[in-house]
């Protein structure tokens, strides 16, 4: 459903993403991993239309650059790494913004289907009781859950996540990834996420792509990609030895 062919993003002379190709099909959770500065976030920004790129990014055979912003938002939803709200919006107002791409016109009110989607997103993320709470009173984990509910209300077919649990504690990390896994069970959906935690990638991903210096080092099914050889090459260290050393602390 989503494919990139020879995607390149340049910042001056620097090739932040260098000739990367990928495919994402329904039911897949593609984990994008690699060291800092590998070009992972830049690649997903290019898919979301945030940075210009060369090459081709296609949605079911159609160049996504030809899609209007609202058309793109109905297909691809993005959850950023860190979200903050400066004004005292309610949780429900922020989640309701997820329905923006479905507005028929500026005089149209919220449709019945739209309201249902918002209700479902609030219920799925456990925010129904907090619906009238001010965003300024929420913790970091709750705020991230609100934006996940927003993207659920947006009802896209592909969910793109940029290190969504990066600053969350363990409980919220597990909660967030479980919610996304439940969302993925509906037919015709797929997830693409940038992750630093390789254990989370192994636990939830079906496919993986390793990047370094803007290039794709390896891509395919998770078990084939996240091997010691590939990981050592990408991270330029003995990853398995490090992880075993960390695990040994608990034994």
């Amino acid at each position, binding site marked *: 459903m989503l494919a990139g062919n020879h995607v390149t993003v340049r910042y001056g002379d620097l090739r932040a993403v260098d000739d990367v190709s990928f495919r994402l099909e329904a039911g897949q959770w593609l984990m994008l991993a690699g060291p800092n500065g590998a070009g992972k976030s830049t690649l997903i920004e290019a898919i*979301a*239309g*945030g940075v210009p790129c060369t090459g081709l990014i296609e949605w079911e055979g159609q160049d996504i650059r030809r899609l*209007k*912003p*609202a*058309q*793109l*938002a*109905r297909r691809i*939803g*993005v959850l*950023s790494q860190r*979200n*903050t*709200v*400066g*004004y*005292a*919006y*309610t949780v429900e*107002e*922020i989640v309701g*913004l*997820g329905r*923006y*791409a479905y*507005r028929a016109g*500026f005089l149209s009110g919220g449709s019945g289907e739209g309201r249902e989607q918002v209700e479902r997103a609030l219920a799925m993320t456990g925010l129904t*009781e*907090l619906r*009238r*709470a*001010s965003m*300024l*009173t*929420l913790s970091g984990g709750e705020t991230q859950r609100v*934006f996940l509910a*927003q*993207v659920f209300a*947006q009802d896209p077919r592909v969910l793109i996540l940029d290190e969504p649990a990066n600053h969350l504690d363990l409980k919220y990390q597990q909660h967030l990834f479980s919610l996304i896994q439940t969302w993925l069970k509906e037919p015709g959906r797929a997830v693409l996420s940038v992750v630093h935690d390789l254990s989370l990638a192994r636990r939830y991903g079906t496919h993986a792509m390793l990047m370094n210096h803007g290039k794709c080092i390896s891509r395919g099914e998770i078990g084939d990609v996240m091997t010691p050889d590939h990981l050592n090459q990408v991270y330029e260290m003995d990853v398995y030895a490090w992880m075993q050393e960390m695990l040994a602390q608990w034994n």
Partner: protein
Amino acid sequence: MNEARALKRERFTPLTYAMLAAALLLSMILCVCVGSVQIPFSDTVTAVWNALWGLPIPQNIAKNIILNVRLPRVLCVALSGAALSLCGAAMQGLLRNPLADGSTMGVSSGAALGAVIAMAAGFTLPGSGYGGIMVTAMAFAFGSLVMILSLAYALDRSLATSSIILIGVIFTMFISSVISLIITFASDHTRSLNFWTLGSFSGVNYDQAGILCAALAVCGGVILRFAPELNAFAVGEENARHIGVNVKKVKMSILVTVSVLIGVCVSISGTVSFVGLVMPHIARMLVGPNHSRLLPASLFAGAIFLLWADLTARTLLSPVELPIGVVTSLVGAVAFVIIFYRTRKAG
């Protein structure tokens, strides 16, 4: 715990709008009644009512003061206040910056420079002597806005509050010196240009009220139409793009509209500072940050505030009339400091 965090907005109903409208109407009538000549409330209502329906006005009523001096002024003040406050609310949402406003960002100063240059150079449009000043003010307002945002962006890509305010202050100081320079070297008849730096509604007429009304109807309509997009921008530009907002198109449309509206206001009354900064905050306290409620509430709040500011300017040291910008700046500067400290504390 969740109950404690719930916002109590259910009290804000259409009745609240009706109350704001009633407060505006009462303020307008009061501003017509009070001045160097006190006019009874009943006389004001009778004169305006009869004039509206083409009925004869009794001889004992000070018809000239009510209909030719105070009413056009009150209309211009209310319309300018509403327009400036609406522009402030739109800019604060668009830039996600509670200190954004025509005066803090130097847009009003830019518009004033345009007006002063047009007047000093005698620039007019065919068929409308006044149109030249207005068009130049609008063009300079837009140019200033683009310049300030570009400079702030070059300094800090996140367009942080402090960067925009810093550039705005520097830009305003620069423009003020240019205006002073023009006034110093301009001929005697243009010395009255001084009022553009302080603001005044003295001598305004129904034509100008009509221009303001038309500008507010068109530009205000455009801004109100963008309420959902402003909500998205107020949450964050990146998030706005992700939910499907055409970020570049919407941003440009709002900036042009705001510049036109500020340009029209400045060409009529000069720079009236801080209305657009303070009033959206008051409105936000009343109705919350959702722009579908905030924008209309800002319209009313701005109109009412400027009417009272103008009344103070006319009556505080009567018979001497203070420039209205002096009153709004005194109130606004204090509010600015409070808001700035609260913003900094909130991080």
